[in-house]
């Protein structure tokens, strides 16, 4: 007998929270107090809940991008570079456009530009992978470092707003940013992100193109054998993945920050990877995990000030979650094997 779906997620979550609580206990903090504070702050209070939902937008878009890549058997670990360069591109473009064209056009153009920049930044690893079989883990990581530095160079040397002391791009006025949803502080990027993640899920599971990508991911030789144009498929998967991650960067700038400061790097690219794994590349499940993680982040940051537990404790929880997920999966497999199914 194997563990059923919800249980397979529920068990690792409970185990991770328990072990995390034990760690807090050892360090002389009150785990119950911490967890209840985090939950109250990030989900039960309206202000906190809005913050939690706002944080989800870039996470979901990155998750959508990673789902495309991972399901196609491509390790796009260069999300940080793609995200940042796209953020810089849209931050540079938005203040320049806003005077000349209507706000809606500006926002759409900036989002397109962000996606395009993300896409372009993944082309080299994509071509190297499809043409020469060069491992994309190494090339995407390198492009990510390159991109993060390059983003800083652009901000410090080219796009710098002369009116500020800290190097940053020119700011987009609050009124010109992505429209808010129904009188809340949540920007409409969240809707876009939800659509993207559901769309990606449907594309991967319900369309011929998605099926080809999944075959490519499951067994490259089989994809070649089936007569798919594997080179093109690889590049397409890379491009779509990086464009979505680029869109995340654009949405974060257009919806929340309005500009990019030098040395800003939320490093979400690698943080979302665990969430996508926890969700087993499932687009619906990833929404739940993103909500969970986002709430932990928002509550954890506030708890750092109020309860004296540093916000990085959240990272420990994510790691524990991954470890227990792996273990549960392993035990489950063993049980299934033993049962002969």
């Amino acid at each position, binding site marked *: 007998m194997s563990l059923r779906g919800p249980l397979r997620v529920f068990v690792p979550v409970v185990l991770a929270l328990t072990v995390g609580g034990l760690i807090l206990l050892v360090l*002389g903090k009150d785990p119950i107090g911490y967890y209840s504070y985090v939950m109250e702050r990030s989900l039960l209070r309206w202000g906190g809940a809005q913050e939690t939902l706002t944080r989800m937008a870039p996470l979901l878009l990155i998750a959508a991008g990673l789902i495309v890549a991972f399901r196609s058997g491509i390790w796009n670990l260069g999300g940080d570079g793609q995200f940042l360069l796209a953020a810089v591109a849209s931050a540079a473009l938005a203040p320049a456009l806003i005077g000349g064209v209507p706000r809606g056009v500006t926002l759409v153009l900036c989002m397109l530009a962000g996606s395009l920049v993300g896409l372009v930044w993944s082309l080299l690893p994509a071509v190297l992978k499809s043409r*020469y*079989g060069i491992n994309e883990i*190494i090339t995407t990581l390198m492009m990510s470092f390159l991109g993060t530095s390059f983003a800083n160079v652009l901000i410090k040397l080219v796009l710098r707003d002369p009116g500020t002391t800290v190097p940053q791009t020119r700011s987009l006025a609050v009124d010109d940013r992505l429209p808010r949803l129904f009188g809340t502080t949540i920007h409409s990027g969240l809707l876009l992100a939800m659509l993207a993640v559901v769309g990606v899920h449907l594309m991967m599971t319900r369309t011929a193109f998605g099926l080809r990508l999944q075959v490519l991911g499951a067994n490259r030789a089989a994809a070649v054998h089936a007569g798919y144009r594997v080179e093109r498929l690889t590049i397409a998967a890379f491009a779509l993945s990086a464009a979505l991650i680029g869109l995340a960067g654009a949405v974060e700038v257009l919806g929340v920050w309005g500009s990019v400061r030098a040395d800003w790097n939320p490093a979400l690219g690698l943080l979302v990877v665990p969430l996508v794994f926890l969700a087993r590349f499932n687009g619906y499940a990833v929404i739940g995990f993103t909500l969970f993680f986002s709430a932990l982040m928002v509550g954890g940051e506030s708890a750092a000030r109020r309860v004296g537990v*540093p916000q990085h*404790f959240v990272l420990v929880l*994510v790691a524990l979650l991954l470890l227990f997920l792996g*273990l549960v999966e392993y035990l489950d497999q063993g049980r299934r094997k033993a049962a002969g199914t």
Partner: protein
Amino acid sequence: MGGLLTEPFLVSLLYGAVTAGMPLLLAGLGEQMSEKAGVLNIGLEGMMLVGAYTGFVAAYHSGSFWLGYLAGGLGGMLTALIVLLLCIRRGLNQIVIGIAITVGAEGLTSLLHYVQFSRSYPRLAAAPVLALPLLRDVPVLGRGLFSHNLLVYLAVALVFALSWMYRSTYLGLSLEAAGNQPAALDAAGVDVVHTRSLAVLCTGFLAGLGGAYLANVGAGIFVPFMTGGAGVIGIVLAMLARGRPLMVMVGAALFGASLAMTTALQVAGIDIPTDVVQMLPFAVVMAVLVVFGRHSMLPSALGTPYTRGER
């Protein structure tokens, strides 16, 4: 620009390159060993960070740099134990567990640091320096290359020792077989799981040692998240070196030099953003890959768990 070829600039560049390159070298050598044996250690960054933390705490409380190194190595090894238990023995996905290790190490070390030191960052005394006799009197090179902590010379010796080991010892060949044809190694009567376990523990030790050097000698303090991608560069170096320890050293020197370049340029009175120089090694490596575009030579069983009798 007249200040570029002066002695202070060159000394600062060489000295800085060695100091910045050391953690990369140790981590890269460690990763190389795992990769040879067929284990992709994405958690290298986490092992370095744990080593940096345990190494710093040990050196801080004992006042001994050697105890610091030992604790750093053991800390990294302990972290590698997770890979051993979950990935090698249980066959869990090496990339997932690797990311978990890195994320967890980031969280745990900053948590522990906060509990112990709150927001203060105590500093260690400067590391003892062993200036090599005769060589230390060579102008520029003497102060740049031959006046370092003893561990630096040991690491260089390790490069050659590893080269020899991979080439001409039974153990070296076993490691390689575990990565390329684990089934053949098994058939030859060598335990694949043991071979890989050994490699991963050594990786952990070396990465932790690199982390301890980074914290205790390079920085003199421990700061959360201080490895800042050094582990990732270590992975990149190991993959680019195609199994040759000497190439890891060349790569570490290249990356170390570019990290040191900014400080050296400031010594020379030139002020350009750090980021410009830090892009260079990555840009060079990407350009080389594009121009030569050869297939990467990674062990064929890299990242796949070994189960006897399974095809």
